[in-house]
């Protein structure tokens, strides 16, 4: 019988903050943009340039800290982390080592075994680096400093997680908090949320931590889960073979489903951290802290409670809708416009989620506005269009955010209320389908469905199917 092992996992999560300008200069943080167009002497490390702190970064960091039950360091400082690399124009990164802005917090995650606390060791503010692009054609490397100086927070957890499921639950929780705060869109694929996994294994029951490795380059929850499984197995195999786990940083290759060592402890760099003399210490006064507290948004738990009281929708719907800030915002806005919470919820729960899933998108990628969804719901309510036309319009709306009222008008999608025209079409359909007519009259109820379908098709979908059904029955009973 083999030994039982326990996996011990801690996470370092980097989140790009959604400020309009960079952390130490006035350049735009917008994603994309031609290389080196969102730059200035400060974020390209030109001689004589000086950093000036963007206060919004402190407010977002403190907001996240408060939402994760952290203590706030009211007198905090920035430190320089010195290392040479061309994506880092000053060859030091401005970060926080000695006095990080938030420390000693926790979040609660739901696991199979019930609610668990994951400790937050600290949250610190820092600047992002630029991007290196290797040009194989010219055989040279180019650097784009658009991302240099984009603000980041790094959330360092305690080694409190024991499985990939817990890690994913923790990340989803963090993402939800940060999205609710509006502090970041937290997109793993685009790199606005990045997680490094510190993992070690130990024999079940042991108190002593094993040697850990750090895994980088994890671009999706799936990659994270697979990397954790892979690394757990790799470490156990080493231990079973009587070998040691080396303390090192490894890079996960998700395509090959394995990891490679990047650097070991032996060549670990000495970052020579020291307080940045170009920046003054940040003093977060009681007054400022109160302001930040007062502007904290309604988080999920409170929202769920309120939805239950305010809107008559099922718990399951509430659970799904509040699962994303974007969905919740859209739900509230649309409901305020059309006054039909259950219908709004249905559109979000069914059609919206289906389209997102089909296109591999996240709720924050939802393309239509609350105004347009409300208008669509009203069109159906007033029987201007039927529900299958509404679904068609919705698909277009999701792609292009068209105004449904205009779209229905332009494409001539309104339900035809001209009974004479409909009756004429029904006569034609009955004449063209004698077999079905006979089947129906012989008691085959199913045949009516076929005839409704044929009639709708002939009407190009612009009829009310219930009305068609009634008229057909009437005609067949003659």
């Amino acid at each position, binding site marked *: 019988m083999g030994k039982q092992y326990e996996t011990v996992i801690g996470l370092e999560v980097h989140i790009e903050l959604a400020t309009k300008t960079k952390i130490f200069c006035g350049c735009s943080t917008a994603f994309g943009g031609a290389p080196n167009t969102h730059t200035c*002497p400060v974020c390209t490390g*030109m*001689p004589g340039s*000086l950093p000036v702190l963007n206060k919004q970064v402190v407010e977002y960091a403190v907001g996240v800290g408060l939402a994760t039950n952290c203590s706030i360091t009211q007198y905090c400082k920035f430190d320089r982390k010195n290392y*040479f690399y061309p994506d880092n124009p000053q060859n030091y990164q401005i970060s926080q080592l000695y006095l990080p802005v938030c420390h000693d917090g926790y979040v609660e995650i739901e696991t199979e075994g019930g609610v668990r606390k994951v400790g937050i060791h600290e949250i610190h503010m820092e600047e992002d680096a630029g991007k290196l692009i290797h040009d194989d054609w010219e055989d040279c490397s180019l650097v784009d400093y658009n991302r240099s100086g984009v603000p980041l927070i790094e959330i360092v957890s305690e080694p409190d997680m024991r499985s990939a499921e817990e890690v994913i639950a923790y990340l989803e929780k963090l993402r939800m908090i940060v999205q609710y705060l509006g502090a970041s869109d937290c997109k793993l694929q685009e790199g606005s949320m990045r997680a490094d996994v510190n993992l070690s294994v130990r024999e079940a029951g042991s108190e002593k931590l094993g040697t850990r490795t750090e895994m980088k380059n994890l671009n999706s929850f799936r990659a994270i889960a697979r990397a954790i499984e892979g690394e757990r197995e790799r470490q156990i195999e080493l231990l079973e073979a009587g070998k040691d786990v080396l303390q090192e940083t490894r890079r996960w290759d998700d395509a090959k489903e394995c990891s490679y060592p990047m650097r070991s402890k032996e060549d670990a760099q000495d970052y020579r951290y*020291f307080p940045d003399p170009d*920046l003054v210490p940040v003093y977060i006064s009681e007054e400022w802290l109160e302001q930040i507290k007062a502007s904290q948004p309604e988080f999920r738990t409170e929202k769920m409670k309120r939805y239950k009281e305010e809107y008559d929708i099922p718990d399951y719907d509430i659970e799904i809708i509040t699962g994303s800030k974007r969905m919740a915002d859209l739900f509230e806005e649309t409901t305020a416009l059309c006054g039909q919470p259950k219908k709004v919820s249905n559109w979000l729960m069914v059609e919206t989620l289906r389209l997102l899933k089909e296109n591999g998108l996240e709720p924050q990628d939802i393309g239509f506005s609350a105004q347009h969804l409300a208008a669509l719901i009203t069109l159906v309510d007033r029987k201007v269009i039927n529900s299958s036309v509404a679904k068609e319009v919705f698909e277009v709306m999701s792609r292009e955010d068209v105004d449904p009222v205009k779209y229905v008008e332009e494409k001539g999608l309104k339900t035809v209320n001209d009974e004479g025209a409909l009756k004429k079409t029904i006569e034609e359909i009955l004449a063209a389908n004698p077999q079905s007519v006979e089947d129906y009259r012989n008691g085959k109820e199913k045949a009516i469905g076929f005839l409704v379908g044929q009639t709708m098709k002939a009407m190009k979908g612009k009829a009310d199917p219930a009305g068609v059904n009634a008229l057909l029955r009437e005609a067949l009973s003659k």
Partner: protein
Amino acid sequence: MSILDDTAVELSEKIKKGEIKVREAVEAVFAVIDQKEALLNCYVTLEKEKALKRAEEVQAGIDAGELTGPLAGVPFAIKDNLCTEGTLTTCSSKILENFVPTYSAEAVINLEKAGAVIIGKTNMDEFAMGSTTETSYYGVTRNPRNTDHVPGGSSGGSAAAVAAGECFAALGSDTGGSIRQPASYCGVVGMKPTYGTVSRYGLIAYGSSLDQIGPLTKDVRDLATVLETIASYDAKDSTSMKRDTDFTSALVEDVAGMRIGIPRDYFGEGLDPEVKQAVLSAAEVLKAKGAVVEEFDLSLVEYAIPTYYTIAAAEASSNLERFDGVKYGYRTKGVEDLHAMYKKTRSEGFGPEVKRRIMLGSFVLSSGYYDAYYLKALRVKALIKKAFDDAFSKYDMILGPVAPTTAPKLGESLSDPLKMYLGDIYTISVNLAGLPALSVPCGVDQKGLPIGVQLIGDCFQEKKLIRAAYTYECAVKGD
């Protein structure tokens, strides 16, 4: 009498009265440069054409009544660690041999707004590291008062240019005495203002927490006028201060009742007797004008040098990391691998004194030594500040020498860097405490080399220093 004998303020007055054109002032300065520069080497870069073109613009501004300030039309020299848009800015280093900034330092912009005409960039110790201007990659600068001697440093080019008449006034920077000591050696006036008074934006950093830009001028009136012009609150510099800047209001001949402390610790072993005599005579002059002068013990003086060289070198080791051959400046050739490129570029691009300080700074910040050296130095810095606070609870200012000796001969200092470091003993504690201090000429030694007396004030008390220096200057002139 030549216009070259005028001070900056006098020259500007004549220009505004129409007695002389800006162009003539610039040409007069370039005539001196043509005559002396080959020997003195005050400048790394001269911009004669730009200066003449700028002279016409400034003249037009004066004629139109738009430029009315006290420095309008005055030819200025700028230390080569201050960025100047479109003009080479080298820090006297090979590693920036081709660096032309796209922006100007805030202090330079303030001067230009006031109608100053910048004629060139002055030589300095490489990256302001040195006390003689001999560590420059672009050759030594000679002291105009005796060309066998150094002008001091690191703002040696600026001090020598003012002393030689190769400009009317200059900007320097002072991290450990780099304005006051060359001012003293060259017989001009120089001041390091309170930390935060002049924006550091565009000053290529050596020791960020100690660096301040300041004026080097012919007399105290020019000093107050230039300081008033360059001082400004600047949102681009987080360490910039909102404060009073009406320095010329202190040009008053009155020191009655002013309490002046003379630290015994500054007059002990190592101080040249001639320097000591000249400095104490200056104190006597102020006493005769009504100041209350007494001796006291400042304490901690012997800790200033190790503290300074720990902090300044630590900051420098990080500040100079950006000079790596990747983005601008010198890059070595024939290297394939990135780290080899870094190493070779920096080995070839930096001189020995800069390398020495980068190594020292990297060492004191390295893991395992940070607490023992860097952190301890920060604690001593706080104690030094406290010793000054105690002194300023009793005195309006402290009076003492600027340097232990007059300007050494060329080549004497480089062979013994430790001795050179010890020469900073009276100036560096001022930077550690963030205080204002100025140097004003108070005589010459037997060889005819100038001696300066240093006045040190409490934070934001520049005006007291200016008043005392002005009173002294008037008294001595009257003699």
